[in-house]
């Protein structure tokens, strides 16, 4: 095996005094001092959040303004820290969205328990729950940090939808009713 001989010549006089190294160090720190600052003035300036960022889990509506969640409770079951609790609810007849199967009566996510793992988003068959770009959560009490349905929809907003599953079901039902075709 080739042996590489490392040069270990003894320190010369100046090196022994440490002065060249100390002065070199001072120059480095001075250069650093004159360099532009990297600080982000946080509350005023916000960092850019990448698209696939896993922030706070939120509930979203489809472009028709309908709640996408059908309270299947898969996310509740999959949630490792058990942060989600869903109270399922029926949709009464005559409701604008009566063609939809169900919707949650209440949807609670305990933000103190949530670990932002994103499994709820992964498991959701309706693409109703997304971890979005909200990352700074604060409150004065524990109760305040249990987010209820209204708050979750407010955070979630509307996301574009590819499927319009319930619209198609409604169309099919209306066609069937009109044409008697099956």
């Amino acid at each position, binding site marked *: 095996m080739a042996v590489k001989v490392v040069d270990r010549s003894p320190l010369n006089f100046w090196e022994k005094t440490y002065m060249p190294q*100390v002065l070199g*160090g*001072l120059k*480095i*720190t*001075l250069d*650093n*001092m004159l*360099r532009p*600052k*990297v*600080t982000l*003035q946080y509350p005023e300036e916000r960092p850019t959040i990448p698209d696939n960022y896993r922030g706070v889990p939120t509930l979203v509506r489809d472009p028709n303004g309908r709640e996408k969640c059908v309270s299947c409770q898969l996310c509740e079951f999959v949630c490792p820290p058990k942060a989600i609790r869903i109270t399922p609810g029926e949709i009464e007849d005559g409701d604008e969205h009566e063609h939809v199967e169900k919707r949650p009566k209440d949807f609670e996510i305990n933000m103190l328990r949530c670990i932002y793992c994103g499994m709820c988003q992964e498991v959701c068959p309706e693409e109703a729950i997304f971890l979005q770009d909200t990352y700074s959560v604060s409150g004065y009490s524990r109760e305040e940090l249990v987010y209820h349905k209204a708050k979750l929809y407010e955070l979630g907003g509307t996301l574009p939808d590819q499927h319009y599953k319930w619209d198609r079901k409604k169309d099919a039902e209306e066609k069937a009713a009109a044409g008697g075709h099956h």
Partner: protein
Amino acid sequence: MTDSLVLDIVLKVVFALIFVVVIMTLAAYSVLAERKVASWIQGRVGPNRTALPGLSAIPVIGPHLVKMGMWQPLADGVKFLFKEDPIPGHVNKLYYVLAPCIALVPALTTMVVLPVGQYLDGDIVKPIVLANVDIGILFILAFSSLGVYGIVIGGWAANSKYPYFGGIRSSAQMISYELAMGMSILPVFIWANGPGAGIGGLSLFNVVESQQAMWLGVWMPIPAFIFLTSLYAETNRLPFDMPESETELVGGFHTEYGSFKFGLFFVGEYAHMVIGSAVFTILFLGGWNFLPTFGVLPDWVADPWSLMPNWLGSTLSVIYFIGKTLFFVFLFMWVRWTLPRFRYDQVMTLGWKYLVPGALICVVAYAIIIGLWDIAFTIEETPAIVE
């Protein structure tokens, strides 16, 4: 008591108060400067939020001052003042309370003999100083080394092992570096008292006056360097902050202290730093002398202050002196964020094996050089002093 005596005393008291206020303000603001310099070196901005309700609303200047963190020392002080001040159950109460005061008092006492500028009394140039005593430098050396008692007593009274280690290290370090420090300034006084300089005495004003031709740091770089290094050790600044090496000793000697008592230690350290920088400026950097004349340039280069109207000249000399001092305060911080802490045995090695012998050699060498210089050039010209 005559009226003039009363006036004299009142003036002295007012003058002393101004001194204390200025030094304490400088100490407080060097805490801010430390935080700012630390941030700049680390690529950050530093304290830039603290705002005073009225003053920060001033257009243009107000926001700028906030950005510079001008009100931060105020907030820091108020925080120290109003925090709960617990006394741990296991401490020796008397000494525990006494230690912070002892740490602060010497730092503030040394400024009594510190000349900060000059003024004209008729035609004679006089120093702006609280007490122009002839033993100036001895007074400063004696009192500034008393500061270690605050640290040692604090470390001992806290009755817990880390502060105790801090106190022990501090005293060992103080003993080691005091020697080198004392010897490194001997060349300065040999020069200031030589027949060439003429005036004599240990007063700091004479040292400044003797530096009109040449700042001593320029032709005594090694004593200046030894003095500066010892100064870093004496003020417990990095790379010699043995007493409070956070990585090993939690907080060092002030681990058990909180709130205002800690604040006193803190301000004491910074006051020490400011005064140490001032002493260095006086001894090696020509005090308030504008620029060295090198013996060839006209006198006003060194002393433009006495040509101006008295009030302007003396004010400018003080400002110039404070400016030089602040540069060394900055150097303290710059070095702090550059060099890592020495190991304890390295501190001892450096002190005893290099600085003390180095200072000793310097004393002998400069004594010979100055002696020869005087024999060759100066003594014939000033026979009166030889007699």
